[in-house]
């Protein structure tokens, strides 16, 4: 019974796949526009066999990792400072909130002119994309630690290491993890966009090359893998998020 209900979720994807295969093989559309699913699968295995796919993947993921770590750490530090210090807030908050209105995608042309089309540009833009959500979430997370928790800590005369480790961090971390998750998925989207526009390697570049050479199969493989990676990143961090929010109701 459980199995049957599980299988019913697969009805529509399987139906779509079947329809796709049927239409592609019926030859109603030009063969280079509607590629049968089996051929897309073959392109995937080909790309895998030649090592091309792995190369593009490593390129993208290492950029993502580097840019994200830089941006997220900076965001963490800045967000904490913004939340704790009135001075930092007075000097930085207006600029911070103005700059965060500007979507990363819109900055691509500007960053290309500033940093060229090489690695620097991509890493800077990934770092920028990661910085703002993490900083904002950290700031709000730290600010939302209830004052009453500190009063309880004072009553029991807890040491400040205990205070930070057992009270401040657990209270702020759920919000921060959520911010990190949002930042990571956005950074991935923006990175792929950058690679589509200007790159010599990476998932985005693979898709763009496929498009220019009218290889829809390559484009589809790229699109699917990009989606799978985005999903995996989001899913993984959701698990982490749940671990940290177990004590919250719902």
């Amino acid at each position, binding site marked *: 019974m459980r199995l049957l209900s599980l299988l019913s979720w697969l009805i529509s994807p399987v139906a779509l796949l079947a329809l796709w295969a049927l239409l592609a093989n019926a030859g109603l559309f030009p063969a280079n526009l509607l590629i049968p699913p089996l051929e897309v699968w073959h392109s995937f295995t080909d790309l895998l066999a030649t090592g091309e796919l792995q190369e593009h993947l490593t390129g993208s993921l290492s950029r993502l990792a580097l840019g994200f770590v830089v941006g997220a750490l900076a965001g963490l530090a800045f967000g904490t400072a913004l939340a704790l210090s009135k001075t930092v807030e007075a000097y930085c908050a207006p600029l911070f909130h103005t700059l965060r209105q500007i979507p990363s995608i819109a900055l691509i042309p500007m960053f290309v*002119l500033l940093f060229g089309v090489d690695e620097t540009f991509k890493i800077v833009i990934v770092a920028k994309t990661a910085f703002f959500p993490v900083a904002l979430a950290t700031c709000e997370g730290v600010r939302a630690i209830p004052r009453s928790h500190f009063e309880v800590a004072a009553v029991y005369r807890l040491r400040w290491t205990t205070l930070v480790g057992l009270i401040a961090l657990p209270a702020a971390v759920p919000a921060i993890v959520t911010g990190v998750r949002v930042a990571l998925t956005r950074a991935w989207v923006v990175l792929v966009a950058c690679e589509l526009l200007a790159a010599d390697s990476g998932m985005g570049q693979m898709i763009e090359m496929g498009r220019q050479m009218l290889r829809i199969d390559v484009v589809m493989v790229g699109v699917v893998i990009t989606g799978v990676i*985005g999903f995996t990143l989001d899913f993984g961090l959701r698990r982490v998020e749940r671990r940290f929010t177990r004590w919250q109701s719902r």
Partner: protein
Amino acid sequence: MNLKSLRGLVLPLLLLGAWEYASRQDAAGAYAFVPLAQVGAAWVEVLGSGELLVNLWASLLRTCTGLALGIVGGIGLGALMALSAPANRLIAPLFHALRQVPMLGWIPLIALCFGNGESAKLLIVSLAALYPMVLNTFESLRQVEGQHREAARVLMLSRAQQLRLILLPAALPGIAAGVLQALAFAWVTSVGSELFLSSGAGLGSLMMNAEAGARMEIIVVCVLCIGLCGYLMSWLCTLLSRRLLRWRPTR
């Protein structure tokens, strides 16, 4: 007006100063960091020639059309999924699979199928608006409290009346939040799609042309415009939803 409230201006002014300083160092600096005066002149230039307004209008129009399509489609699809279990079984797996692909990742595929004209861009913008609308409509309809449903049953309202008078109004705050998200996505995607499919008018196309001609000052003008418009639109949207949801307690 005391001096302390001006502290927020210090950092921006310092940054502007550094920018101006960098632009005066050498030719390479002037190339990347155009002098502020030149940015000012660019404002006058693109405003005067009407270039900015034409392109801005094109981007805005596409955003609004795509947003409207996304909202209507998203509420319809989300409501269908929330109210009918069989429909949810059929639609949900496809929807959640497709939504994992980054919006701009669709561009090459869509461009291959629909060309790189306005219809391709509009499709992308509508899709970008559709996702948050479906998610928010679905979630907020699902979360309508059991006590509201029970009260509606006790008052003997029909299914249609329950949907119109109870479920939809109860879900409205969630749906409004979805519209706000959808607006942000639609705006970014509208400008973003122009970067990739830079035929036709739009702020993104204007930026790409400026990039090709190394006209940094025009890019700066465009970026400022994009940020400002995005901010203004979400502000308007918030105002509108607050008016619409005035039955909620104000905090």
